[in-house]
């Protein structure tokens, strides 16, 4: 029977779609001929809005860019302001920042594990991941008062010191999660069904991944050991001993394994930070927000967010607010060209599989 080519709108209101995102698919039977990503569903224009607000007002705004992992956004903004204004950060603040960043990475990866396992029908594993993420949100609530948006890493350090007994609670949580790793492995990562559903799905080779600008797990799943924490250590990552997990195959299976291994590394980093953390001040006082002028200049800073390289190019023209900010967000590269490439010739049933394995978060793509 001959098959017509049809245009199919996948999302933003679709059961298999996560987030404010849609894909237009040209399909023949259940094979995808061509896919086009449409990211414009948020319309916030934060880069432009930041040009209207002063240096301090921007600080609670940047975390909104990535809903799932807001802390790396705060970090990159704080680093840019510190670099432009020449602010020194106390040593203890570096360690607290690393703890928060790695907790956020862990929470984000658990959220990712939830989304992926839920999509494959592993409801139990999904609930475990979500429950552990929820414990982490409790930790964040105790630390900063907010569960999702933390507004904690500010230019000059962090907003306040860790509350009493926080380190012990974090350690207790990590031990509980660590004790559960064999269960996660048995039920999900070493499960034959996961292997069958994810192996060779959304496969990309190293050459093509580099050419299309892949970052984060997509790059590490093709065997390229690229991590900003190693290549240009920020905070105090050069004092910490950790590995950058890589896999070779470049498919959804490899990407999920990279995420799993990164969670273990994050836990180890947090433990080392708690052990090595010095005592002392946690912030450098910054000027009155309404009178804060930052000298003319430009800077490009970058951090390793949970999804890959996150960069911020910021220009000051010597005023009380930025002249231009431009975020280089990891989902912007992974979520458009690479997604479109991987969806070619895939089946409709695998759209969610490929999309979630790329670990795209739609708010990051929008400008």
């Amino acid at each position: 029977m001959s098959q017509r080519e049809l245009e199919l709108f996948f999302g933003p209101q679709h059961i298999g779609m996560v987030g404010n995102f849609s894909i237009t698919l040209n399909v023949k039977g259940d094979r995808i001929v061509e896919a086009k990503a449409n990211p414009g569903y948020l319309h916030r224009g934060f880069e432009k809005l930041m040009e209207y607000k002063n240096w301090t007002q921007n600080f609670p705004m940047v975390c909104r860019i990535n809903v799932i992992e807001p802390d790396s956004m705060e970090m990159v903004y704080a680093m840019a302001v510190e670099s432009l204004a020449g602010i020194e950060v106390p040593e203890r603040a570096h360690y607290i920042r690393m703890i928060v960043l790695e907790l956020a990475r862990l929470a984000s990866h658990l959220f990712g594990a939830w989304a992926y396992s839920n999509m494959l029908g592993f409801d139990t594993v999904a609930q475990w991941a979500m429950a552990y993420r929820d414990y982490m949100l409790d930790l964040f609530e105790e630390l900063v008062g907010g569960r999702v948006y933390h507004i904690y890493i500010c230019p000059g350090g962090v907003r306040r010191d860790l509350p009493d007994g926080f380190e012990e609670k974090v350690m207790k949580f990590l031990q509980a999660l660590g004790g559960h790793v064999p269960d996660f492995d048995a039920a999900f990562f070493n499960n034959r069904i996961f292997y069958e559903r994810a192996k060779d799905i959304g496969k990309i080779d190293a050459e093509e991944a580099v050419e299309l600008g892949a970052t984060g797990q997509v790059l590490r799943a093709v065997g390229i050991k690229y991590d900003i924490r190693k290549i240009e250590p920020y905070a105090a990552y050069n004092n910490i001993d950790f590995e950058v997990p890589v896999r070779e195959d470049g498919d959804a299976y490899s990407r999920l394994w990279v995420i799993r291994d990164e969670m273990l590394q994050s836990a180890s980093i947090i433990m080392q930070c708690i052990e090595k953390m010095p005592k002392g001040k946690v912030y450098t006082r910054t000027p009155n927000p309404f009178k804060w002028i930052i000298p003319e200049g430009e800077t490009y800073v970058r951090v390793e967010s949970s999804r890959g390289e996150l960069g911020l190019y910021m220009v000051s023209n010597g005023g009380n607010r930025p002249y231009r900010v431009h975020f280089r967000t990891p989902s912007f590269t992974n979520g458009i060209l690479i997604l479109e490439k991987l969806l070619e010739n895939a089946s409709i049933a695998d759209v969610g599989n490929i999309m979630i394995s790329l670990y795209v978060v739609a708010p990051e793509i929008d400008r």
Partner: protein
Amino acid sequence: MDNALEKEIKSRFVGIEVFTPQKDRMTIKIRKENLLGIIKFLKDKEFNYLTAVTCVDWIDENEFELIYHLSSFHDPAHIMIKKRIPRENPSFTSIIPIFKNSQTYEREIHELFGIYFEGNPRLTPLFLENWKDKPPFRKDFDTREYVKETYDSIPTLEEYK
């Protein structure tokens, strides 16, 4: 990144300026005809990752500035290649022949700043839909004014009664 690279760039290309404002950061100001040559040269020197393309609107000087950010998988260096272009009928060359992933960045700049990239086959809308106004990220586009005009005209419930 070492000084050898800086020397080689200076000797190979005419009419460029190279700055190293701090360790592991390099800024190269180029002429338009050098663009593809210098990007190809750096790509062969292991700076084979196009991190981003940024546009800055310098309205007082009546210019747009395009910035190509290049980085490497082995080197902590970050290179910015800069070119200023006039603000009237702005157009520039696409670097898709060298970096395929510049396509999306050029689409973004085309939409938000109205710069046309010769050689980019896909300058279709990325975020906006049915946008008739001037490109919204230009400095002479006032977001607050636009919001006021577009949304403040909706009558409140009391006025509606």
